[in-house]
């Protein structure tokens, strides 16, 4: 049987307060727990996904649309790590351009191994490109080119 964690323990291991953990469950990002309240039990999957989330936050990535939210006003559809004006480019900047020149969505694939992050880049409805984080770090241009080429193929067909 899988190991289980109490809410307090899960909170301690991940650094997220219980309210935040319940928020992710209500949002569908985490599976439901066994029971609710202080006595509820959580599994390894909860821990893994929350740690992946921590990792993502530490990398300055956004989760905007992972929770099904629509883009805000004047906001690109979904953002990887586009830097704000004036921000120091200390982290490697990643901005994946679609054929239309706008940013494509990037987010963590939460089913990945706990500490490893993958990006799922949605190319079209039902079609995603999955990239390991370290590949993304090493070859951002290659990823950008792949997405660009895929966009052209999906829009115009294979010539």
């Amino acid at each position, binding site marked *: 049987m899988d190991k289980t964690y109490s809410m307090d323990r899960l909170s301690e291991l991940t650094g997220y307060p*219980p309210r935040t953990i319940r928020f992710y469950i209500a949002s569908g990002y985490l599976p439901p727990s066994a*029971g609710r309240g202080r006595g509820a039990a959580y599994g390894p999957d909860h821990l893994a996904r929350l740690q992946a989330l921590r990792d993502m936050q530490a990398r300055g990535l956004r989760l905007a649309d992972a929770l099904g939210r629509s883009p805000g*006003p004047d906001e690109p559809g979904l953002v990887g790590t586009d830097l704000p004006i004036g921000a120091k480019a200390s982290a490697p900047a990643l901005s994946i351009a679609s054929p239309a020149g706008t940013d494509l969505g990037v987010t963590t694939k939460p089913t990945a191994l706990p500490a490893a992050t993958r990006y799922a880049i949605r190319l079209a409805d039902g079609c995603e490109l999955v990239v390991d984080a370290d590949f993304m770090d090493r070859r951002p241009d290659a990823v950008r080119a792949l997405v660009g080429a895929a966009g052209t193929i999906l829009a115009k067909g294979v010539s």
Partner: protein
Amino acid sequence: MMDGFDGMAGLTAADTGEVIPLLGIDVKARVSGRAARTMVVQRFRNGGAKPVEAQYRFPLPERAAVTGFRIERDGRTFTGTVSEREKAFADYDDAIARSDGAYLLESERPNLFTASVGNLPPGAEALVTVEYVEVLDRGPDGIEYVFPTAVAERYVPPASSWERDGRPSADVVGQEYAERVPYGIRIVLSVDGRDGIKAITASRSVTVDFSSDPVTARLAFENEAPDGDIRFIIEPKDGSGAPSATALRAADEDFLMVEWTPPTVDEGGGRDIMFLLDCSGSMQGSRIEQAKRALTACVAALEPGDRFGMVRFGSSLDRPWAGFKPVDDAALETARKLIASIQADLGGTELMAALSEAFSTWGQSSALISAPGSTPVSEAGAVRSRSVVLITDGEVSDEDRIFAAIRQERRGARLFVAGIGEAPNDHLGRGCARAGAGACEFIRHGERIEAKAAHLFGLTRMTPVSGLSIEAGPGWVLAPSDPAAVPGRPLVVFVRRIRSGTELEVVTPPIVELKAAVGKRALSVEAPVTPASDGSALPQLWARERVRELEEGGTGSLQGRSNARRDSEIVDLCERYGVVSTLAAFVCIEERAVKTAGGDMEFVRIPGLRPRDECEAEPPCAAPMPKFAGKIGRKRGMPPTPSAVLSAGVLLEPSLSVQEASNQSYRLYMRASTPPVDADPLMDALSLQKAAGGFGWEAADTLWGGKAPRPKGVDAKDLPKSWTTATAAATALVLAALAARYGSRKDEWEPLVGKTAKAFAAWLSGPGANATADGLPLTEWAEATARII
């Protein structure tokens, strides 16, 4: 009891078939002077087959001190208590685990709240009452009561996309939108003091009953759509700005509320003004056109000796020239041309970067600033005031960072904000004004930008009021601790004193003395103290103001406290006075004799409407979608599974987005189609004001919409520098025409023609006293001519 809700039950969300468990919102408010107490009753009903946990995000005024949370269910009433937020949540969650009913009221931002109704059994109904108190604004037209009903989408800057607690900011400040919602809003306002009220008007159809005291004003429609701010103006018979104070003596504490309108004094001296114009995509259409007109007229109203600069911003910045330009006719002409060419084409709203850029114009010359927030004085001793005038429709999620940046970077400049939109983020606007020791005006749907921008511009002329102190005796604690007094803007300060054992007999002072400095002149006024009425919320208002200051990083003695110490002080205040903040929430538990299963519960987020100045548009089939003008709205539904992430990515290409709109339940939203921008002769004429004051015939012709009548002969001597006899006649005619024809828009032109009016009046009362046109005294000729259409 809650009448008027009949016939609203069982409605389902448009298109989805899912039952939305919120049926209606009933608002009852009591207004007495500037104090208001509001009760918001939300009626929840579970029309489904499973128990429901419903979550409803809604706006309240940012000044609201939320003081009450009550639940009525099955004829029983339950009262909530305030606890530290995590603890409140744990109690809520535990209650659900025990199969009790649980209710939670949290504050995500000072003006954005989430109500959670946990474990509502099928068929059950709950009335959730949220009670708050506030001190209302007094504007030029009267006392303003605003009830916000919609949350506009807020831009989440990439640099601050997570909350402190690890939730994504986008979800914390965001709202799910539906095209229609089954719940409507009903508002009844009771206003005390009938004899002092001239009229009550509102931004929606309203019926006002003056036959009773208090006077009641109610929305004419029982189910007003929750799609923007609903605004009432209570026009008093006499609008006195005299200082006053109200006192409340509690068990071992005294409270005071002090009101004062600092005087508007124009001591002259040069101005430095930075104009900061939002050119993000959402400004496209009439917003940018009106803003440009307002800006051009403001620039033309600058006086010799002033200097000005400009920054336009979106996701990037554009600065047409470095530093400041001194005001002369050539500079004004350059600015006019430049503003005319401006377009709203700069993408998103990076407000913080724009403000930093504007403030940086004053360089690092700390030698000019004696202390943070004080008036910058040059070494020569001449006062040169610094102002930033910001025109924006930006809604951003990281208010606290912006406030902190303003405080840190403003270099003694005052910040004046004109915020555009039907559902403005009042926390952002007011907070910017607080941090920038300036003022904020909201321009809602259908209002003109020009009037508010001109008013704010007029304030930049006024000599700053500094060093405000309130002398009420020893031991009084002010909230805010370092109140910013803005000339002409009503100010409210709350004061508390804890009485120690030996002081129990100390009486409330009969008067409170306010001291301040206007420029170099010391000022002292006395406010008579009157006792507060029974049930006064002064303690809660004081606590809320104190908490706000702590939340925003504090000024004066509150500055620089460590986070942990600050947080615990906030929680203590909230628990002690029973008010909500972002760190303390209301929780209410309904213990049930018969436990209903909480396990298989459906979680429902209740959607809201978009503000009424945004509406659903036809999918842009033919013309490509302007890059940032469109918005994607997603239908409410259960939260997607993790595999459904990234849903919006494909919508970025217009052709694909149309496809999406038909295949899935996506809708494309755009701003309401903007009406063609009418020509506006008034603003156009004001834009032609000369650097040294005065108008030429060009301006008069613009007002006339053709050739304005010229006198055959003018006799005018000893004219002001750079004036000709034609300038004198044209100026006389323009000023007369403004008064005769544009009386209803006086609030727009009056703050802008100061230099001309001054120069003209000075000349007329001196060397120009005998000036004539066509044999008549010049002003008589002008007045007579202005009446001829």
